[in-house]
């Protein structure tokens, strides 16, 4: 799970072009949207594509995204649960 969180932080920085953000600056529970990393709606779509492309997980209901993409921790937990299932 710890490795997955680190991997997600690296992917988020690279794929969302967060030029001035380092892995160490993203806390596991930090909000990804709003006052946290300040991601926007296009970033949310990129995260949905990332789940599909890198982890083979398709979001059946886009409304789920709000909870799944709350933080790196919630993303990691969702991916882990889908792989286990």
């Amino acid at each position: 799970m710890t490795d997955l969180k680190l991997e997600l932080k690296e992917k988020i920085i690279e794929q969302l072009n967060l030029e001035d953000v380092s892995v160490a600056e993203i806390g596991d529970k930090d909000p990804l949207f709003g006052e946290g990393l300040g991601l926007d709606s296009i970033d949310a779509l990129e995260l949905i594509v990332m789940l599909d492309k890198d982890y083979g997980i398709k979001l059946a209901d886009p409304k789920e995204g709000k909870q799944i993409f709350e933080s790196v921790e919630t993303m990691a937990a969702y991916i882990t649960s889908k792989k286990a299932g």
Partner: protein
Amino acid sequence: MATRYHIEQYCRITNGRISKNGALVFESAETEFSAFIKTAYKTLGIAYSKFFKMDSLSKLALVAADLLLVEEPEKNMALVFSNNASSLDTDRKHQQSIQDPDGYFPSPAVFVYTLPNICMGEISIKHRLFSENSFFINNRFLADNLFDYTNSLLAMQKAEKVLCGWVDFDHGKYDAFLYVVAKNGTFTHSKESINQLYQTI
């Protein structure tokens, strides 16, 4: 044809050099556009949260526009841009991402830049402009088109000033020449002066 308008200021970005009103403001030996524009962005002290998410054309346009607009109080300013390559550089990236039916993963962040006029939207957001804008695709830099359209906008009082010019990016080659046309300024707004400023920088 007599004109009532003038070119207030102008800038050029090409071949590792950035100039404003004929004076060099930034120079770099970086051959890659991404490295060049990133260094220019930081050196010139430009601040725009979306900068690193934008495509190359928008980065080029935003840096060029910022040179002329950062101290510009007039917000009723139309944008009239032109280029040769449209958004082809980004279009190709998008095409590659949908080429393989088994690896069909289009990037939303790339797709949103598959129109050339998006760069004018980025400039308008940063500088809070709500004015007219148009983007023309031409084989080469054509002062005639820009001159006529800009004069028309000003004559019809669609804007107090017009930021216009050429912003082209393709295959790593970049060329931006933007200028502000207003009632007052250093140079007479004419096809000859536009061509002269573009060719002599």
